[in-house]
């Protein structure tokens, strides 16, 4: 491979990686928000993403909605699902050992996957083409309209989320609860409500990612959330768990690395690469790229 074609390949994979990575970033945000507040690895989050993809699918096929209303519909459905799950499965365990909550999260994840299979059968479905796929060619670099759509939607949602967290009352409450739950409660913040709100926001973002993936790959199935869910968690840890810009950075970085590995080596090693990076980061910077080291006190 000579230098110019190498460079060309590099930029091409960078483009693919960023669009894939922004999907990871959207899912990672939900992980990081939930973890930041109740210190729970919400394994069911990947399945909320799957739920969102199906909600988008039914909105476009049965309700005949166009892309934007379908996206909003999926986000609302997922937000409600997130609130219900938190209310029924996680809230009763607020003071239980953390591993019990984790097992519950795994249980919820299995329930969503196999419950969904009962309703929609395990067969993959073809996501309707809501956008005609236009392929743009910039001097040999291929960008299709779906990648642009993913990027624009993801950036818009991330900006909105940052605004909500940084500028609104609820956002301030969320930051307070994640900083110190007991102190926040003493200041009159309704902690349970804030946690519900966090689940709703995170789930809505995951659903948006699900719909975008449906549009991009044209295929959805009940188990589609497992791997992306896990990798989104990796992305959240990579950036520094509990930190919103960290999740965005981690997601995009992970997407780029995966695209590079499948472009230059072999796509079978793609998943291993993601985990290898995770372990390297954990060993050398356990608090993540943007995280601060907190010294353990006795």
């Amino acid at each position, binding site marked *: 491979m000579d230098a110019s074609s190498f460079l060309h390949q590099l930029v091409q994979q960078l483009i693919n990686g960023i669009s894939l990575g922004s999907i990871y970033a959207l899912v990672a945000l939900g992980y990081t928000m939930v*973890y930041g507040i109740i*210190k729970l*690895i919400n394994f069911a989050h990947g399945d909320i993403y799957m739920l969102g993809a199906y909600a988008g699918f039914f909105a476009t096929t049965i309700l005949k909605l166009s892309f934007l209303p379908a996206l909003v519909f999926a986000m609302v459905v997922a937000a409600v699902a997130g609130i219900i799950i938190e209310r029924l*499965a996680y809230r*009763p*365990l607020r003071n*239980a*050992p953390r*591993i*019990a*909550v984790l*097992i*519950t999260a*795994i*249980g*919820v*994840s*299995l*329930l969503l*996957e*196999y*419950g969904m*299979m*009962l309703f929609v059968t395990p067969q993959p479905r073809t996501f309707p083409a809501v956008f005609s796929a236009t392929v743009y060619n910039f001097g040999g670099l291929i960008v299709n309209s779906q990648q642009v759509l993913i990027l624009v939607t993801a950036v818009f949602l991330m900006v909105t989320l940052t605004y909500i967290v940084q500028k609104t009352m609820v956002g301030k409450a969320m930051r307070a609860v994640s900083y110190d739950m007991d102190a926040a409660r003493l200041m009159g913040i309704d902690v349970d409500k804030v946690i519900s709100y966090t689940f709703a926001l995170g789930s809505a973002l995951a659903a948006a990612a699900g719909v975008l993936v449906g549009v991009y790959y044209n295929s959805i199935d009940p188990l589609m959330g497992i791997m992306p869910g*896990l990798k989104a*968690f*990796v992305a959240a*840890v990579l950036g520094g*768990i509990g930190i919103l810009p960290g999740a965005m950075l981690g997601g995009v970085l992970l997407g780029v690395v995966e695209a590079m590995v499948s472009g230059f080596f*072999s796509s*079978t*090693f793609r*998943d*291993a690469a*993601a*985990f*290898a990076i*995770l*372990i390297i980061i*954990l*060993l050398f910077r*356990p608090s993540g790229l943007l995280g601060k080291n907190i010294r*353990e006190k*006795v």
Partner: protein
Amino acid sequence: MQALRKQDLLLLGLAVVFYAIVQGLLMADIIGPFWELNIVLVGINIILAASLNLINGFTGQFSIGHAGFMAVGAYVGAVMTVKFSLPFIVALAGGAVAAGILGFLIGLPTLRLSGDYLAIATLGLGEIIRITILNIPYVGGASGFMGIPRLADFTWVFFLTIFTLFFIKNLIRSSHGRACISIRENEIAAETMGIDTTRYKVLAFTIGASFAGLAGTLFSHYFYIAHPASFTFMRSFDILTMVVLGGLGSMTGAVTGAVLLTFISAALASYPEWRMVIYSISLIILMLYRPQGLLGDKEISLSIIKRLTGGDSRAEN
């Protein structure tokens, strides 16, 4: 000490009687092949749960990559019997040693992490092991390692399960075991008392991994095949679920969890589409009502049974 030994002998005797009964039922074909398979699976799951319990329950190190070590044992054992035609017992030892060495190499750097970070690192490592195996054509790659002879049977599984349980029980009761438990209770305090925490964490991790390797070798030599898809993180979750369900830090709890989950899973086998739904709902409900697991960190022991039946009320050991 004397009383302890006596109890061990009694338990061993009970185990042999239990073995004789089940083996007799198997020989007389009263237990059909489906339940025979599940009994063997219970044994393998007990080894897995008990060894994970050593890491998670007793040492307090949150590991969820157990399926990876199981995979190593399954494949190394299979390579030894199929490619080198070594006897089964050598393969069992080889599988356990290989998984143990890998556990040591992985444990040394990663056990510096704690809590969720360790969890996610071990999960990642388990997946890396699986994906690496998937990419080795020598052991069948993605289509799995086929043509493994069925060398394991109920007898092998049963006695290795008993061996595992006694080994781990004795380890826990030794000074090494107490060091492990002290790390779980308070790592900083343990360190202050002069316990080399890294050493004991790695020790527990290595022993746990090698027993997982043993279980893996038994697994591949009972089911004729070692397939990468059998060793995904879902299997690690399964083992973790058994341990937590039975009660973290309880030997008898791990056994209870393994027996219960394997049989629930088997009993639901005739409703394939509802199986996982019922399984997950019961898991959630159990966790909601009994977050510390069925037994908590208590043990079912002879003295408790004696006390419950109104025998002498000697304090439990």
